[in-house]
């Protein structure tokens, strides 16, 4: 039922308190961006607070727990700002200078007046300046004319899908309209999706619904339940949406609450997220731990500017994050606090026609205006030019960005891609290397390798042929000499012990059955050899870490190579393995002495010692596409190691093949058990020490 009534409102233009801030100061919050891999790197300020809009007295419009802000953009005539002043049951309207214009539904005492709002939590204004309000307390959507007069109300929709009791549970908190005049309503706590209503207010469908998410454990346990048990269990409904906006590009942007990923979505008309194919976690990993165990960031609103950059706001850590059209984080900033430009409980954010961000704070009941800095303008300009394929024009802009922030990876990537388009692959690789972007680096490298091979094919081919011919000649002469003079006893020099050492360890690795039995029963194994193997293995691991190609390191910089960790990773499995194996085999009557297990364990590392560095070096000739070869080589070596372990156990302890197999398994299980035990004992010991310290301190301080 449509009810029309003219609403009286006060058209008093009152001066709102606006505190202008110095534009010279650095900002009262950190400024950074989140690079790939969740690294936070600093940037100059992208946005800076320039004004705090406060309302000192109720008659001037002092807000009370405001929850939503909507800016009706109009570049020529100036923007109009609408605020859902929830605590005062009204919509406050400000002009483009943020002066109080009037309030909708202000001062109505008659409860039967359909214009009277009750805890309105959402406001939206369409192209015809019609004001839509999510009148949460009255369980309805209300439509006001641009003059603030009551026009329609949309009561709770009814439909079979919605169920019988829907009207009782209906709690609209946000409302928007799309270009077709379809109305989208966020119903608080409704896990089925956004309510999509026809222009007449009839329910059409749920839109952009979340999938039910179950953890692996939950999925397994549910399989074990009976039908009856499942009936009694609480249905784990999807998490619900908390805000919605329609962008200039026609996409619907939503924020959700309580999810670990896809907290923000850009939905097409079919309700599918077009921003990220995979589950994208929008939470900021560098600060997540500060929120405490089990707590997560809650993104409460989203806004999109004229360049389609998406800005979201989180009310847990009071941070603002801006993403570009393709979902790369451009800037992050904001902090909790009482200072100007800080937040206590941000509830809504919107962008005005000049690209300024207006943030509404529910607790302090203020609006903070953030102006874009020159740095952010440069980034936006460069990004826009780049997305419009004006690469040459974007290039100098990216250069400016890098001059202001050497860490800005998007600039390096964009420069790299521009070089690649110019077929300057070498420079492109340099930029991608700096940007730690191994995927694009791989593409550039592939092209560079192609050109290299093309340019030097003749030389390479000739060299290979000459080398092969020389090798054949050498082999034939050697063979002739062998026939003529018999086998010569090799001359001894300083290399002889080294070569015989390697011959010996390779022999064991290739002939494990004989080799390990020789170690046990013929005393062929020496402790010295074991130490040398493990030393060389550790050294080769360090060398391999430095030699692995940038692509196969996944773009990890060499700064991350930690010698200490490599040494630990090289030696700890060996030490744990030999201890566990010796322990296990003692129980099952193995014949091997600890000395033999010690040496045999070291010999099991020979394949790794021999191949890790060469594989790492060869990786420098491959691209990402050829990762299969790299993985295959590594897997083959690992298989070799496993075979050696098996024969080591069998040979050294003199086990039957089947017994050796089970002992090998048991050793593996034992290693895992030791690791778990270590974690448990370590944790408990810490707890115990902490308890003792606490106990005595309590005696000292409180006793």
């Amino acid at each position, binding site marked *: 039922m449509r009810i029309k009534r003219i609403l009286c409102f006060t058209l008093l233009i009152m001066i709102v308190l606006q505190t202008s801030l110095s534009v010279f100061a*650095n900002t009262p*919050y*950190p400024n950074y961006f989140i690079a790939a891999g969740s690294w936070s790197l600093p940037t100059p300020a992208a946005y800076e607070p320039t004004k*705090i809009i406060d309302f000192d007295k109720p008659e001037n419009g002092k807000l009370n727990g405001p929850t939503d802000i909507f800016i009706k953009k109009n570049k020529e005539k100036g923007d109009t700002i609408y605020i859902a002043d929830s605590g005062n049951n009204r919509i406050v309207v400000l002009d483009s200078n943020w002066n109080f214009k009037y309030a909708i539904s202000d001062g109505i005492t008659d409860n039967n007046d359909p214009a009277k709002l009750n805890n309105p939590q959402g406001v939206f204004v369409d192209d015809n300046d019609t004001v839509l309000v999510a009148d949460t307390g009255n369980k309805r959507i209300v439509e006001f004319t641009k003059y603030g007069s009551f026009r329609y109300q949309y009561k709770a929709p009814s439909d079979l899908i919605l169920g019988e009791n829907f009207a009782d549970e209906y709690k609209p908190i946000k409302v928007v309209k799309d270009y077709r005049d379809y109305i989208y309503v966020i119903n608080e706590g409704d896990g089925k999706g956004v309510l999509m209503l026809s222009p007449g207010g009839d329910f059409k469908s749920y839109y952009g619904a979340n999938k039910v998410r179950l953890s692996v454990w939950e999925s397994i346990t549910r399989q074990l339940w009976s039908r009856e048990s499942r009936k009694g269990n609480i249905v784990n409904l999807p998490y619900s949406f908390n805000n919605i906006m329609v962008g200039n590009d026609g996409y619907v942007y939503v924020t959700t609450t309580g999810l670990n990923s896809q907290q923000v979505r850009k939905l097409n008309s079919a309700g599918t997220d077009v921003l990220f194919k995979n589950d994208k976690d929008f939470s900021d990993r560098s600060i997540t731990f500060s929120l405490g165990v089990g707590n997560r960031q809650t993104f409460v609103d989203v806004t999109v500017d004229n360049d389609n950059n998406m800005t979201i706001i989180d009310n847990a850590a009071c941070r603002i994050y801006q993403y570009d059209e393709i979902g790369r984080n451009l800037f992050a900033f904001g*902090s909790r*606090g009482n200072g100007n430009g800080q937040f206590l409980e941000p509830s809504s954010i919107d962008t005005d026609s000049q690209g300024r961000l207006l943030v509404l704070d529910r607790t302090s009941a203020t609006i903070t205006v953030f102006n874009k800095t020159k740095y952010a303008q440069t980034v936006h300009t460069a990004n826009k030019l780049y997305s419009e394929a004006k690469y040459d024009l974007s290039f100098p802009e990216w250069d400016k960005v890098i001059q202001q922030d050497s860490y800005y990876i998007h600039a390096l990537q964009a420069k790299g891609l521009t070089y690649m388009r110019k077929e300057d692959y070498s420079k492109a690789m340099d930029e991608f290397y*700096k940007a730690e972007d191994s995927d694009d680096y791989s593409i550039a490298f592939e092209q560079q390798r192609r050109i290299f091979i093309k340019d030097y094919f003749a030389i390479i081919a000739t060299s290979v042929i000459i080398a092969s011919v020389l090798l054949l000649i050498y082999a034939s002469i050697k063979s002739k000499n062998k026939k003529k003079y018999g086998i010569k006893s090799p001359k001894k020099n300083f290399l002889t012990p080294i070569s015989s050492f390697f011959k010996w360890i390779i022999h064991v690795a290739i002939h494990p059955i004989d080799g390990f039995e020789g170690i046990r029963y013929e005393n062929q194994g020496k402790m010295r050899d074991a130490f040398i193997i493990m030393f060389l293995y550790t050294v080769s691991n360090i060398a391999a870490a430095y030699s692995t190609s940038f692509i196969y390191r996944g773009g990890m910089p060499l700064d991350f190579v930690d010698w200490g960790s490599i040494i630990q990773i090289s030696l700890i499995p060996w030490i744990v393995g030999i201890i566990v194996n010796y322990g296990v085999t003692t129980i099952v009557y193995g014949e091997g002495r600890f000395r033999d297990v010690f040496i045999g364990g070291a010999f099991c590392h020979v394949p790794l010692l021999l191949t890790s560095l060469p594989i790492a070096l060869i990786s420098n000739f491959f691209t990402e596409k050829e990762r299969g070869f790299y993985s295959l080589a590594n897997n083959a070596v690992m298989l070799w190691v496993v075979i050696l372990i098996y024969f080591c156990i069998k040979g050294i302890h003199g086990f039957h093949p089947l017994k050796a197999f089970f002992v090998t398994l048991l050793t593996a299980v034992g290693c895992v058990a030791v690791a778990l035990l270590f974690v448990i004992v370590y944790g408990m010991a810490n707890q115990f020490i902490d308890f003792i310290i606490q106990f005595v301190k309590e005696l000292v*301080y409180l006793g």
Partner: protein
Amino acid sequence: MAKTKTMKKLIKTVVVLVALGVFGFIVFKLFFASDKNIIFNTASLSKSDPSPVERAIDKTEKMTVVCENDKLKMQYDYESDLIVVTDKATGTTLRSYPELTELEKANNEKGKEAFATLTSPLIVGYTTTSKDIQDRGINQILADNNEAKNATSTAQKPTSTSSALPLTSTTASATPKVYATSSRTMVPKATIIQSEKIANIIKNNGGLQLVYKIPSLGFEITAEFTLEDNVVVSFIPRNGLKETIGECRLMSIIALPYFGAARQGDKGYFVSPDGSGALTKFDAPRVSRVISYEKQIYGPDMTFADITLFPDYSELNITMPVVGTIKPGIMLSSFAVESEEKAFLVLNNPGDRSLPFYRSGFKFLLRNDFYIRLSKAADAFRQTENKMAVGNLKVKTYIDVDTKKDFTYVNVALKAKEVLLQKWKDKYGIDKKMSDEYNTSYINLKVFLGAENRYTSTLASVKVMTSFDEVQQIYSKLKDNGVKNVRISLLGWTKKGYFGNATDKFNPEASFGGTSEFIKLVTWAKNEGIELSIENNDIELYAKPKNGISLKSATVRRPGTEYMQFKYPSAAGIFRQSTDFYILDPLYFKKNLLDNNIIKIKDFGVESIDLTTYGDKLFTDYSMSNPLLRQESLKTYVDILKKYDSSFKNVSVYYGNDYAASVADKILDIPLNKSYNAILDEAVPFIQIVYHGLLSYYSEPINSDDHPQTAFLKSIEYGAFPSYELTYRKTDELKYTFYDKLFSSDYLTWLDDITKAYNSVQNDLIDLKNQTIINHYKALDDKNVFCTEYSNGTKIYVNYEETTVNVKDLKIEGLSYLKVVEGR
């Protein structure tokens, strides 16, 4: 035989038991040593007795003249608790609290607590449980405790007489009764005697002495108010502060809280040395969420700081104990002159206790409260210090009245300059003068040499950003552009670079070139005539101390025996959990390391030194071996600085706390902004006006500012020489070090800006270095155009607008400045 065996067994058992006992004792001492036995050295704290009195003021006396001199007269009205100071020349009166309108009076009849606070000559912070600290007007405390007493005594003795105090007729709020009736620490009800206020006239020169006795809390507080020339002195003698009941503890005191208070909409403002200086205007729009501002002079005491995960980006420290009040024709300049290290500067918006007044003053901390955590898993709980470790508390308020004159913050700053010079002379024995003979380099180039890579913990490698040789190359390039007279400050020259160990630093990092290259660099600088300075970190430990220095006995501790550790913030604005840094005890450093360090640095041939920590961080130390009060830390700093000053040609400090500035030749990274606190409206160059002409000061690195261009203009406006932080190699190399805050430092990127800044200083600023700033103001009301006037008549106009503006007949280009020399 059997006996011998038994003996042996016995001996073995005894030896084991003794060994276990010794081990247990050591463990106990190491981990559970109590700080209750720590005895701070308080010998240097002045502790006076209350002054002898001439007579007591009768309760019926009205507006008694308690003190008078040529300039001022002080009167006191017992009943209304009003102190009135009259300027004799003009007849202007200043009240200890502002007059209320009839309506406000009527309203305040309902809200008595607000009225009692307003009329109180003291606001006292106290606690009865350590958990709940409250600041209340002394009159309210008297009223509460009398009311509680009356309630008790009425039950016991129905004929009890009513209170003689005017304010005791108020009805007590619900809270006060708790103190009188519930606590196990209270004196038995039967022994409660009435709280009272005694007003006396002080002997000889006169003055008002107020003695408050609150037996139910065990407090006795004496405050004295006297006149000296045109100064009102608020004095609380240390021996006039008494506590007699265990856990009832005095925490803080503010004297004359509403003296000079103003109403919303009045003309005028407070000026405080927050950052560079800030105004709190009485007629500015006020946001409603922030009412009070309390900030410790010389920065927060890290030893008692709350455990927090997020660094505060919005607040800057206060460098000097001064606050000014400007009203039409009136200027009040207040200085905390005793125990200023323990004082907080307090500013209040209207709204505090529903009172419609702005107020400012100093809150003296008598004790710190702090949170203590007994174990990693347990919640922290609040404690207060056992003893009141303060001396006398004194505030001097200079009263200047001239109805024909428009006082501004510049006048307050110039008064502060005068007072500080005198204080430095009296307290530290330093006679600093306006001099025309101090060396000044036009520009400060911080050259960052390198820092350890933070992800290779076992065999950490140092990221070389600039080698010693490359420092010369940077200069050579600048010299080609005509940039010559610069100071080069080397950051991270020590072993392992910037985050090297302060106790193991005297082998300059090998990857930068090692000792030989370092000495070559120093010699080269001397030959070139450049001021080459090294940033010297004495006491901030980025690793456990080395060279025989014990972490346990030589580092600063919090109460509760924990080490005082500080962390370094990450780019994302959160303290890095992987960093646990310590502070070396300043006293330990002074006694054991200072002399040797100076010799070693001098051996390199270095003549200039930039000292970290001393100018911007001050703390208490609860270590068992070298306990140090905040006041004593300050004195230790001054001694250390003096020693450096006598050994080096140039000594610089950072930020610029006044005690450090008293000794230093230069201040680096001087703040050019105010905090983002909502109570502060406008930044002004207050501390710059104080320091200009006394010593050179340099801005924070302009290339690290969000707006390098405006940062440069700001340094010109504030008379600061510009500063840049550079590296020879590309900045992104720093990405994986703790020094990733530097995001644009490549020297080639900044070459043109530096040249431009250098030329500006050379042409326009250097000849003003010895001049006093005599005025500073906004040149156009509606535009960001400011003017700084110097004592030689020179004016510098700075235009922050993007377009050209006209000031009178002067045309100032957008984002530029204009120097106007008198007579030209």
